């Protein structure tokens, strides 16, 4: 009897959390599944009394949709380009930070600043930095406005139209990669620095006694001993990469592309939002499920590869 009573109590204490989880997590997931498999489902239409048949029309629509393939491509390129670059950069910076004594705390703070700064604000700053080559306001003198182009010109290069109307897809993506890498660094540096500081110093003394060159210390000792942290930042990096959205907004605004090519840089999440905005909840749900499936497959693959190389 006592046990029963206690169980009842336990459920009572758990009930607020369970209630919130059911309403805001479990039900939305179920509802997403439901909407995805109701052909042409839209909330407004549903309220209006329309009925929808069960089927996979939403998925077929999503896949047929040209914009979707563009989104998929953008997302994939951003992931594949930014995760390795940011991970390697973060590793090098963390190792360098860890090996210096003076100013370590100060530099650590500086490297961590991007993490606590609003990403839209950062995006606007980047947009200004990569600004157009053109006429100075109110005059006919051609000049550049963005600091990046100023630097390129200073070294005698030709200015590049990075993000404005008429810019190329490659230039757009290059800006996005730089921005996302820069944005992703602080978290990775923090994790890797924490990992580095927990590595026993004796391994390095042993390596020193054996006259191990610096490069070999990094590749044969530091990286393997850091592998659990590296695995973590790589996996979360890919997951974050597939959910990329606000960074595009930050630089290109909600047009998701240069003025003359709106939507060119749209991503998977952007596609979902667009569908929602057009009262196409069914299509949005289908796209979200596809995104989920892709992240799942990539993460499983990552796990499999990483398991071979991670030493816990």
């Amino acid at each position, binding site marked *: 009897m006592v046990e029963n009573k206690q169980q009842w109590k336990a459920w009572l204490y758990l009930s607020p959390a369970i209630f919130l989880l059911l309403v805001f997590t479990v039900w939305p997931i179920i509802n997403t599944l439901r909407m995805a498999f109701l052909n042409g489902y839209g909330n407004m239409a549903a309220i209006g009394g329309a009925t929808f048949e069960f089927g996979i029309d939403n998925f077929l629509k999503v896949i047929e949709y040209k914009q979707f393939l563009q989104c998929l491509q953008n997302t994939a390129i951003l992931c594949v380009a930014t995760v390795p670059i940011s991970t390697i950069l973060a590793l090098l910076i963390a190792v360098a930070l860890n090996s210096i004594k003076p100013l370590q705390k100060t530099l650590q703070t500086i490297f961590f600043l991007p993490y606590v700064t609003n990403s839209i604000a950062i995006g606007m700053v980047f947009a200004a930095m990569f600004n157009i080559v053109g006429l100075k306001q109110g005059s006919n003198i051609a000049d550049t406005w963005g600091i990046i182009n100023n630097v390129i010109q200073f070294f005698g290069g030709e200015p590049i139209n990075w993000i404005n109307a008429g810019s190329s897809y490659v230039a757009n993506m290059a800006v996005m990669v730089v921005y996302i890498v820069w944005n992703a660094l602080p978290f990775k540096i923090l994790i890797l620095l924490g990992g580095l500081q927990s590595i*026993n110093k*004796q*391994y390095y*003394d*042993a390596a*020193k*006694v*054996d*006259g*191990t*060159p610096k490069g*070999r210390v990094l590749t*044969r*000792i530091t990286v*393997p*001993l850091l*592998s659990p942290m590296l695995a973590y930042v790589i996996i979360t990096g890919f997951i974050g990469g597939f959910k990329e959205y606000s960074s595009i907004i930050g630089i290109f605004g909600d047009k998701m592309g240069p003025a003359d090519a709106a939507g060119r840089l749209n991503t998977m999440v952007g596609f979902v939002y667009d569908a929602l905005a057009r009262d196409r909840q069914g299509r949005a749900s289908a796209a979200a499920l596809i995104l989920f499936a892709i992240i799942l497959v990539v993460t499983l693959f990552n796990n499999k590869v990483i398991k071979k190389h991670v*030493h816990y």
Partner: protein
Amino acid sequence: MKVVLQNLTKIFPSRDKKSGQEVIAVNDFNFEIPDGKLVGLLGPSGCGKSTTLYMICGLQKPSGGKIFFGEDDVTELSTENRGIGLVFQNYALYPHMTVKQNIMFPLQNLKGKDKLTKEEMFDRTLNAAKLVQIDELLDRKPSELSGGQQQRVAIARALVKMPRVLLLDEPLSNLDARLRLQTREEIRRIQRETGITTVFVTHDQEEAMSISDIIVVMKLGVVQQIGAPQSVYDDPKNLFVAKFLGTPPINVLEGKVSGGKIYIGDEAVLEVTNVDDQDIYIGIRPEGIEPNENGVLTCNLSSVEVMGRDSSVISTHPASLNPIVRAIINSDIRIDTSAQTIKYNIKPHKFFIFNKETEERIYYEVK
């Protein structure tokens, strides 16, 4: 390869800036380690023994003095160029590498004319593994090995590049009692077989005594005594060394010299010449006193511990600095445990006296 330490000194700057007290970890260490000997640096924690080892190996820079390997001055030489092998207290085996990779690692770092082919590397790895008898375990990871096996891998890794000097930091402290006995014999054997000059650090006097050719007893950065284990034990230079060596420990009592006699309490226990009248500390090895009805020293009998071959007679004396006075005797000798007191005779060569202020040994002649 002989190793010479010349006025070796290490001063650590004070951590607390206010007091400004610097720490002298090693103070003016002079010693020549003969070629091919096994030397034990012995002392309580904080005596500077590990600092000395790390200075020999080059991971710490001396504040003063010089270190020679043979005729080479290596004081300014970096660790990797000294040709030493170091076995860390926690072994520091790379956890992600197999035993084979661990042992081979130092060889893969060799450059230029020392560079080895894959076959040579493997041969030397195998030889080192065979020397420490772990050639069956080459494909295991360190986490799959016992403490003793890890220790052997660490020694193999230190030996594989054929160092001029082998250094071991507390080699036995992470092993259980049984493995310790086995491993110390093993270290002795490996050292004999390779003939490499070996220095090891320990706080366990038994460990140091049992395998060293030479022991160096240190206290607070200062070398107290250097010598063969037995001679240091038989002839301690001061009270610290006498107390530090020997299990069970030496009995220490207060006493005085007066008119050519050494007194413990009111009893004159020994007549000596050429010692001035003064207060002294007296050290008597447990095997230096034996029960005798006509003995010179009277103690209050507490109990007798039987250990098989020997017995330990536990008694107390008001002048004793230790809680008990212990005598180790042959277990054939029967002690009447119902008696309140027990009388002992003294073996003069196990009986040391020390100046009460300096705690230095006072040498005497028995009358």
